[in-house]
């Protein structure tokens, strides 16, 4: 596009001219304003009238009459017509006069009149519009003469009054108004001018009869009408006339005889190109992308076959290339997004368009293609033409003609230069000489690069690769091997990925040649080997490939592969210092320049050599030998002999070397450290056949034994290191996957081929150390439970031994209760490893205990010789009764060698039950035969919510029981109630019912211990805390309580929280009183006392039932009223009639107010009757004791 002149590339802009008053700033103001308007207008500012007259009279227009139009035109379009109308011929001339000139003295007025006359005469032949502008810059008042002069001016100028404008530059607002008015008038007149001009020429087009001579002119007229329409921004008309011109031009090809044939075609094509450019621009400007592309295809189809004379065929290709390039640039700069194109639209078109045709990349690529055609045609033309000097001399005097697409010879005769038409021969020489001057290759590279980038933008990788390939070929031809190689490498990767072998072959051929020319031996060998192993024409050679344009690789055939194979193996197997591929380069492999290739899992050289390694066993014992199969596969076309193979493992001491017994051992490899195994049969790799080698191998070191790589030595200084692969997980050769070939297993045993691994596991040696956990019986919650651990060596010395201790919950989950995480106590762990005690009952020092946590411990063990033992004790505390799994693991090294540090492990585990030692219970009781009425007990409340109720200021009994739940006997030291609240004495008195224990009390398994406390609540409360029962106990270790192992046994405190109680005042208290025993026949007093503790009168009904064994005197039933805060006593005299434990008469007391009934329990209303008066000798407190013993039952 850049080669087109500026006036062709940009849309035409109206041109006006301002004349006069150049000394002021008005010209600049007007020009700037018009240019900034939308649409813009160019201004030709001329200082005075003479300049305009000179400009317009410079090329006087020839009147077009009938005779001139019928004469043959010398050309179709003049080269300078468009620029003339864009820069020199204005559509409107604005004559500027100052108000002083117009409204001033008569002399000035006369000057104005004469100027106007001259101006009118100059512009009239060209139909240029006139505007008169009176610049009012003096602010003087001319009202008196204004009207008269204005009318005179209008008449003189022969203008409508609206085209005589007053320009007021004095204030900004006036200036702006004036400028706007000017712009509007200029726009209107410009449109009128271009419309009139267009119409004028259009009538000529319509008048013309089509004969050979007039076609030229018709094309010209159509072109002009189109340009005038463009000036008016009438794109539809412009397009129509451009198309008309284009079609007429196409018709001229067979008919025109004006010029010699070659030049005639050149002229037509040049004009067709410009017209096409204009049409495409207008279409794209209107957003008609599809139409533009369709138009381009028509244009291309119309001219593609107009190749022209054979000697200048390169001109055609150049022209075609330029068409594609220009269209690509137009698409590139067009604002119409290609993505919005739907192929729905494409498919309905007459000629279906494809997606790629909407992208500039397609056109850039074809531009490059045609430029390549041009280059080759030009080379032929150059080779056929005369010597260069003749060409140059003939080209010197040729210059472009005044008509577009034509050339003339300039003849200098003295001072004058005349033009002479060229013959086709001269023209041919001229264009060949011109063509020689350009470097087409760089142009081609530029086009391909643009295409490649554009393809990359819309993710067309393969098309991009193809462009990359073409670029690389160009670089290769330029001997720019670095760039070529870089591009070829990228392209080769693309082809490798998708398995396009033939294309890959071609690229590799170039790459091989690049590395040969650069002297890079590694690359040369790699590319050669890859090529030799490619599956090209590996089948039956159905299609005899005969690539005309095949590159340095040659045709992709088996024979070519063999040639490459031979060449590369000749290079690598030559003796030291002799190798060289060509005489002039430095490719060689020598002692100083050895070659070592690495083949990994993704390397393209996997085709060349593939190593599969399988251990026959998955797990082996240390020192016990197992079998390993090493299999090699090659797809090289010819057999390859391997000098030696080195098998490398992760345990380097297992490495071994396989040597070809028929070949002398190479001195360079004989390092004396590795095991050499001779193979009697030669190590020969046959195409597509596994070379299987099976050997014994053993390892002394436990852990993983993995084969890392197989290094094949194929020449004195050439090795290939091939990464070992497991047969079980080996992937197919990517390029050979779809080839027709025999596939065999890498191992003889098919099962091994499916499951074989390149790694095996070497077990660790059997441990010869015992770890004993001496635990008997379950642990008790709360105590520090000691577990002795003994490490005894049976054969191994123990170096750097470590004992790991783990406590794991049997039921899974942690030994940790999340609910208790907030509790800061140590009891957040249910089971806790407290510490480790050493062999001498001493805490181990920090050097020995490496780490200890609640459920994990790590202890280092000192060096032990064989037969020695070491022990320690684990101190574990249970906070909850739960079973725990104890894992103890000993890791040690039987040898004193830190570097190898092969550890042997012994694991022991033991489940230990954790049990609660003592179950604590409690019970509240009321005193014997005394029953306070507790109102809360009458209310119907569910049992779960009800707290135990105690009567205020009454003595209640609390019986605490402790039961040994274990299977061992325990010592109980004390049972006490701790009340955390300091004021407890004030609100409630809790006292021991009896004496404290004098010494530890032995509690046998299953036995229960009870202790009685008396409680007297002193404050009424709905929720009274009574405290916690604390039991101190420990395991009973036998008879000798104060010696041996139990010496350090601490007392364990078990706590039992007592529930809160409700304390209430009982309104009535009923107590029964009778002697502790009776004697047959002897009367005694039986009293029922009723206390009214309220301030209310209480109505109480009572009823005494008869009893068989007693005779009763008194009221059987009645209602009494008990006064507030007073006591009522019902007194009966009772005589027992029988002996033994007898039931007293049943008394029922009913409180009317509370609807509560009291009836004494059977126990309370029972008395023992002696047959005769017994003889007692007891202490005074017998009764009290008897009371206690009865209560405890």
């Amino acid at each position: 596009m850049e080669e087109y002149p500026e006036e062709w590339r940009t849309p035409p802009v109206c041109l006006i001219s301002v004349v006069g008053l150049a000394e002021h700033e008005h010209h600049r103001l007007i020009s700037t304003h018009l240019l900034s308007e939308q649409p813009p207008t160019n201004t030709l500012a001329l200082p005075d009238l003479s300049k305009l007259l000179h400009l317009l009279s410079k090329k006087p227009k020839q009147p077009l009459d009938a005779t001139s139009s019928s004469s043959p035109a010398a050309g179709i379009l003049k080269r300078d017509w468009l620029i003339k109308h864009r820069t020199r011929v204005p559509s409107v001339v604005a004559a500027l006069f100052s108000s002083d000139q117009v409204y001033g003295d008569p002399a000035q007025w006369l000057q104005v009149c004469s100027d106007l006359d001259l101006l009118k005469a100059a512009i009239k032949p060209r139909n240029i519009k006139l505007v008169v502008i009176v610049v009012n810059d003096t602010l003087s008042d001319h009202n008196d003469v204004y009207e008269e002069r204005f009318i005179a001016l209008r008449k003189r100028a022969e203008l409508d009054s609206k085209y005589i404008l007053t320009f007021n530059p004095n204030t900004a607002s006036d200036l702006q108004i004036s400028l706007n008015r000017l712009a509007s008038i200029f726009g209107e007149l410009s449109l009128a001018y271009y419309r009139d001009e267009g119409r004028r020429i259009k009538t000529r087009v319509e008048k013309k009869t089509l004969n050979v001579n007039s076609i030229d002119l018709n094309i010209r007229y159509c072109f002009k009408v189109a340009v005038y329409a463009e000036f008016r921004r009438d794109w539809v008309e412009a397009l129509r006339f451009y198309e008309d011109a284009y079609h007429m031009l196409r018709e001229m090809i067979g008919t025109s005889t004006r010029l010699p044939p070659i030049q005639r075609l050149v002229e037509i094509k040049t004009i067709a190109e410009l017209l096409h450019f204009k049409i495409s621009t207008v279409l794209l400007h209107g957003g008609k992308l599809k139409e533009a592309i369709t138009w381009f295809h028509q244009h291309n189809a119309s001219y593609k076959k107009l190749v022209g004379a054979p000697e200048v065929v390169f001109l055609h290709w150049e022209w075609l290339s330029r068409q594609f390039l220009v269209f690509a640039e137009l698409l590139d700069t067009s604002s119409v997004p290609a993505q919005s194109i739907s192929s729905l639209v494409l498919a309905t078109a007459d000629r279906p368009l494809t997606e790629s045709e909407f992208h500039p990349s397609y056109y850039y690529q074809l531009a490059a293609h045609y430029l390549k055609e041009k280059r080759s045609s030009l080379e032929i033309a150059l080779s056929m033409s005369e010597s260069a000097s003749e060409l140059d001399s003939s080209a010197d005097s040729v210059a472009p003609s005044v008509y577009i697409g034509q050339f003339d010879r300039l003849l200098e005769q003295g001072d004058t230069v005349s033009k002479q038409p060229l013959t086709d021969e001269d023209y041919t020489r001229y264009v060949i000489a011109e063509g020689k001057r350009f470097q087409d290759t760089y142009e081609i590279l530029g086009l391909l690069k643009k295409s490649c980038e554009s393809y990359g933008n819309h993710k067309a990788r393969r098309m991009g690769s193809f462009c990359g390939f073409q670029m690389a070929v160009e670089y290769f031809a330029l001997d720019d091997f670095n760039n070529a190689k870089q591009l070829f490498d990228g392209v080769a990767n693309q082809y490798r990925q998708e398995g396009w072998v033939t294309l890959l072959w071609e690229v590799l051929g170039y790459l091989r040649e690049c590395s040969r020319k650069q002297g890079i031996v590694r690359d040369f060998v790699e590319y050669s080997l890859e090529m030799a192993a490619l599956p090209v024409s590996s089948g039956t050679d159905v299609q005899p490939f005969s690539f005309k344009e095949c590159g340095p690789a040659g045709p992709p055939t088996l024979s070519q592969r063999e040639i490459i194979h031979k060449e590369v193996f000749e290079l690598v197997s030559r003796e030291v210092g002799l190798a060289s591929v060509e005489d002039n380069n430095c490719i060689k492999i020598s002692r100083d320049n050895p070659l070592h290739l690495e083949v990994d899992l993704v390397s393209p050289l996997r085709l060349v050599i593939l190593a599969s390694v399988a251990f026959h066993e998955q797990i082996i014992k240390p020192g016990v030998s197992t079998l390993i199969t090493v299999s090699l596969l090659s797809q090289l076309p010819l057999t390859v002999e391997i000098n030696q193979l080195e098998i490398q493992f992760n345990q380097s001491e297992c490495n071994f070397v396989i040597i070809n017994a028929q070949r002398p051992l190479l001195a360079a490899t004989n390092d004396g450290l590795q095991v050499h195994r001779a193979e009697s049969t030669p190590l020969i790799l046959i195409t597509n056949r596994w070379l299987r080698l099976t050997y014994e191998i053993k390892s002394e070191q436990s852990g993983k034994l993995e084969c890392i790589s197989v290094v094949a030595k194929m020449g004195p200084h050439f090795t290939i290191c091939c990464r070992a692969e497991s047969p079980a997980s080996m992937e197919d050769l990517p390029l050979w996957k779809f080839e027709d070939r025999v596939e065999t297993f890498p191992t003889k045993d098919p099962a091994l081929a499916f499951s074989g691994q390149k790694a095996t596991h070497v077990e660790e040696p059997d441990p010869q150390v015992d770890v004993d956990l001496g635990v008997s019986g379950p642990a008790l919650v709360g105590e520090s439970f000691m577990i002795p651990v003994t490490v005894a060596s049976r054969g191994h010395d123990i170096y750097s031994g470590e004992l790991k201790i783990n406590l794991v919950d049997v039921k899974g989950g942690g030994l940790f209760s999340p609910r208790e995480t907030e509790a800061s106590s140590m009891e957040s762990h249910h089971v806790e490893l407290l510490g480790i005690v050493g062999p001498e009952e001493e805490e181990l020092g920090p050097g020995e205990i490496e780490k200890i946590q609640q459920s994990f411990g790590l202890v280092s063990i000192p060096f032990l010789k064989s037969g020695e033992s070491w022990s320690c004790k684990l101190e574990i505390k249970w906070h909850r009764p739960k079973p725990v799994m104890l894992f103890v693991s000993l890791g040690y090294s039987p040898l004193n060698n830190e570097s190898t540090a092969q550890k042997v492990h012994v694991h022991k585990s033991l489940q230990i039950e954790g049990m609660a030692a003592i179950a604590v219970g409690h019970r509240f009781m009321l005193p014997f035969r005394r029953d306070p009425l507790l109102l809360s007990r009458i209310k119907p409340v569910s049992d779960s919510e009800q707290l135990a109720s105690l009567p205020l200021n009454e003595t209640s009994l609390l019986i605490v029981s402790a039961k040994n739940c274990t299977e061992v006997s325990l010592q109980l030291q004390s049972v006490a109630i701790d009340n955390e609240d300091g004021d407890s004495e004030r609100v409630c008195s809790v006292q021991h019912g009896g004496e404290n224990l004098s010494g530890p009390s032995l509690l046998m398994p299953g036995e229960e211990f009870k202790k009685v406390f008396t409680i007297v609540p002193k404050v009424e409360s709905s929720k009274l805390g009574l405290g916690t029962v604390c039991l101190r106990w420990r395991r009973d270790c036998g008879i000798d309580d104060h010696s041996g192992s139990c010496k350090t046994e601490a007392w364990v405190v078990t706590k039992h929280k007592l529930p809160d109680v409700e304390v209430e005042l009982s309104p009535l208290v009923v107590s029964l009183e009778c002697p502790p025993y009776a004697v047959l026949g002897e009367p005694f007093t039986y009293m029922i006392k009723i206390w009214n503790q309220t301030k209310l009168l209480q109505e109480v009904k009572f009823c005494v039932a008869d009893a068989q064994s007693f005779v009763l005197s008194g009221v059987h039933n009645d209602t009494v009223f008990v006064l507030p805060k007073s006591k009522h006593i019902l007194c009966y005299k009772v005589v027992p009639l029988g002996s033994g434990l007898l039931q007293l008469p049943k008394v029922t007391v009913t409180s009317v107010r509370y609807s509560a009934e009291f009836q004494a329990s059977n126990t309370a209303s029972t008395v023992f009757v002696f047959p005769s008066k017994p003889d007692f000798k007891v202490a005074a407190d017998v009764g009290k004791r008897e009371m206690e013993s009865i209560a405890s039952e």
Partner: protein
Amino acid sequence: MIACVAVVGHQNNPLYIQSFTEADDALKLHHIVHCSLDVVDERVNNPKKSGPTLNETFLGLLYPTENYKVYGYLTNTKVKFILVTTDLDVRDADVRNVSVTISFKC
């Protein structure tokens, strides 16, 4: 005239390529077939733009080159048949018939 027929696997690997031209441009045809896979990919990946060919296995004209036209046919198993013709004015219906015939014979 058909210049080349190619069968391309679902991983875009060539399964079969046969050219029928007198000119020695087999390599060029390889390139053309390979490049046409970009268009196949685009049509498969952007079904919106594929228009009427959405539900059809015949993909129509893939792209024109300087001398050839490339047509595509996509089977349910993502195997592609690529047809390169020298006839620039070939009718779509004819190519469709040829493609379907090839796919049945394969």
